[in-house]
């Protein structure tokens, strides 16, 4: 049965698939198993591959004080063997099918995937069912992973841009749990116990808190049947209780200034912004395209390709005038209102004050007068192309279906091309005026101080033969 929702999805894509000889993409099939697991299957027959993703509605926003970083640590633990996949057989379990696998944790979600040849479908479903129900959490593994994660945290701190981003987010939010980094605070990583990890795993890794996505060279009926075989026996868990705190409206500009040793100066501003399903989200996507170039909607792939931005307002005002070596904007689809962030790296020799003056002038101006019709046309053309580019593999297609099902609803993604095409000048002006208010912003500086010189040492014998 085709619902109106399905029809609109197909039509939205038909504008891209206007070759009558070409098969239109199959409509994703959505099912819910008796234990509450949502299963989404889409047939894509362009390569002999299948991608399986299992999504959990748990991320760092679900963490309470003392437990920050637990979602991500749990993700790491869920690669360390299960009742039916002994620890020493994890290695190679999907590689023997030529497959790749990975997982990630962010503020709203935790997800795991395998992409491999289609004959590995059952194996992939088995791995994900085991991960949901039977992970081991051996105390020795928990301990050795503690230091791996602390190493991951320290690696992130090596990057001044990332450090500033973390401080900025923690300043922009004073109440909502979006404030702490997904990696967690160091003291929590040092003190959390195996039982903390395991308890968290048992609470959130239940079928009624998960979405399974299968995309690729499969038969949809068949795939659902296999999913049922692997997951059907897993008992549902108690409904998950969520932290209820919402961020109160920001009432004045906030500022954080890091003065640390470094070689480059970084500027950021974060503005509280609409969630993915809210009315202002797609107009803000368009506004960001005008300011810094369109990125598309795929957290997994699209943001890794720099946006087309040579005509973008902030690029012209900052980079083309030599004030910044780069400028970027970031508005990501989230479940609850998160942040629109603008970032710039000052050109060597340019002060952060000069960068800030130029950026604020631009942001204030667009908040006052909105964007032009030409800009709207260009932004929509860019977004239309980016949505095509980010659909280039079964892995990316599966990511998008699962991501939006987890943080909003599948509709939000299905309707995105239509919704973007319908964004009006007035909607963009309204969201610019609302989001870019001075009282809604937090400004961050990484203002480098000179590094105390210590000469490189070669062979322990003296200086002078290092990198120069």
């Amino acid at each position, binding site marked *: 049965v085709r619902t109106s929702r399905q029809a609109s999805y197909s039509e939205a894509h038909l504008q891209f698939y206007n070759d009558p000889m070409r098969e239109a993409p199959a409509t994703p099939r959505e099912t819910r198993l008796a234990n509450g697991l949502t299963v989404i299957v889409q047939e894509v027959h362009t390569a002999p591959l299948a991608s399986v993703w299992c999504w959990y509605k748990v991320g760092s926003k679900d963490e309470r004080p003392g437990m920050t970083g637990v979602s991500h640590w749990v993700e790491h633990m869920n690669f360390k063997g299960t009742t039916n996949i002994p620890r020493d057989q994890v290695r190679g379990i999907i590689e023997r099918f030529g497959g790749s696998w990975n997982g990630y944790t962010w503020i709203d979600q935790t997800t795991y995937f395998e992409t491999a040849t289609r004959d590995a479908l059952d194996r992939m479903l088995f791995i994900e069912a085991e991960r949901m129900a039977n992970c081991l959490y051996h105390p020795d593994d928990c301990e050795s992973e503690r230091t791996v994660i602390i190493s991951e945290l320290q690696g992130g701190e090596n990057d001044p841009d990332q450090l500033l981003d973390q401080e900025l987010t923690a300043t922009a939010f004073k109440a909502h749990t979006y404030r702490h980094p997904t990696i967690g605070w160091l003291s929590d990583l040092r003190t959390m116990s195996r039982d903390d990890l395991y308890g968290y795993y048992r609470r959130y890794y239940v079928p009624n808190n998960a979405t399974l996505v299968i995309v690729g060279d499969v038969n949809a009926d068949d795939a659902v049947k296999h999913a049922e075989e692997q997951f059907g026996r897993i008992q549902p868990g108690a409904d998950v209780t969520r932290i209820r705190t919402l961020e109160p409206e920001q009432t004045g500009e906030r500022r954080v200034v890091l003065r640390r040793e470094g070689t480059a100066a970084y500027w950021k501003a974060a503005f509280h912004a609409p969630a993915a399903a809210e009315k202002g989200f797609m107009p803000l996507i368009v506004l960001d395209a005008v300011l810094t170039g369109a990125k598309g909607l795929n957290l997994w792939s699209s943001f890794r390709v720099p946006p087309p931005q040579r005509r973008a307002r902030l690029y012209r005002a900052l980079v*083309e005038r030599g004030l910044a*070596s780069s400028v970027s904007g970031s508005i990501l689809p989230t479940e609850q209102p998160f942040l629109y962030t603008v970032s710039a790296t000052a050109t060597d020799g340019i002060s952060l004050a000069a960068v800030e003056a130029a950026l604020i002038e631009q942001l204030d101006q667009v908040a006052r007068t909105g964007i032009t019709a030409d800009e709207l046309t260009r932004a929509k053309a860019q977004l239309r192309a980016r949505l095509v580019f980010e659909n280039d593999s079964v892995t990316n297609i599966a990511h998008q279906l699962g991501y939006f099902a987890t943080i909003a609803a599948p509709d939000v993604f299905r309707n995105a091309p239509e919704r973007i095409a319908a964004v009006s000048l007035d909607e963009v002006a309204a969201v610019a005026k609302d989001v870019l208010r001075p009282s809604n912003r937090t400004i961050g500086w990484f203002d480098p101080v000179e590094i105390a010189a210590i000469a490189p040492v070669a062979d322990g014998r003296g200086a002078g033969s290092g*990198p120069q």
Partner: protein
Amino acid sequence: MTVVPSVRSGLSPSRVVLDNGAVVLAKETTTTPAVSISLAVRAGSAHDPRDAEGTTWLLSRVIDRGTEGRSADQIAEELDSRGITLSISVTRHLVSIACTCLAEDFDPVFTLLGDILMRPSLPDAELATRKGEVITAIRQDEDNPAVQAHETLMSRLYRDGHPYGRRAKGTPAIVERLSRSDLLRQHALRFGPAELIAVVVGDVAAAHAQEAAARVFRPWRRTESVPLVLPPVRPAVTRDRIVIPMMNKAQADIAYGFTAVTRHDPDYYAFWLMNNAFGQYAIGGRLGDNIREKQGMAYYVSSSLDANVAEGPLAIRAGVSPANVDRAIAAIDEEINRLVRDGLTQKELDESKQFLIGSMPRALETNLGIASFLQNEEFFGLGLDYDLELPGKLDSVTLDAANAAARRALDVDRATVVVAGPYTER
């Protein structure tokens, strides 16, 4: 063991060589209504003038900012109105201009890319702005332990001005000094049709792509370019250890390596499989198993083999807490000694074969993946049926050959070890 090749019947790209020597490869796919274009020229940073490392890098930053017939603004409008980002990359041997566009935009976009490649005007104002960007990027690299460790490793492995040991971005002083005429000279010297490999993959008929390429590139006049002569690579004879203290950092980066093999070495496939088992398979092969999984010392550890025109490096990289630097280096030493002494097991070799052969459908799923494969195939002269031959080449590597590769490449007494981060020699 016998591995059945993937179900693909082969990429079978169309290949045309124009009269002026330009090579054009085209492959039609219909996965998405998009096309990936990659124009690579044998003009990489190895061709930098001896006293001006960074010339090619700076040229690559300004080459797309104006042509004889198009202003920077016009180019910006042509790209941005179609949602296109140009990726311009510089490797030791190649400068590549690449992008993905909608199929409906293919003709004008291909024309634009050809214009950028053949007739850049390098306006002075653009050059000044791009210099600021490059110098800022160099300053950022100076504060990045991973970059410092790797660049230092390369400079120690490839000494005496070998191009592989030089910094692609150059130094701020060199970048400041480079003029428009320096860059135009470099362009005239190295950018010519005989150096071009053009690849088009996507929703455009191969014949149409070939017509477009002929239209755009046929008028490009052939120039004589001086062949690149690389000095011989001399393997290290002693162990070398360099520490770059960066006390403002939280984590130390280790780069540990050797000069290895050329891409044309008869044992290349044995090296590839050996390196996969040693430092890549699953999470970082044997290295990852020991240093990350068993000892919990590092978030990342792996080894990479960059077999190239000359003997490229086999480089091991890890990020560890400063307290664990010595333990991590000792663990790398131990894994090397164990591999050289005992070799891989047949099971390890088979697993790596299965993985590398089995991952080909994934590698060749997207337009970008196919374009990259075809670029590599043409650059190294591997033949148009290389995608069909590769599984057999991997499958025929014996355990003895893989273990011989380990003995040839790895020796803790000849290792170059660089540490950059919050760490000093005691």
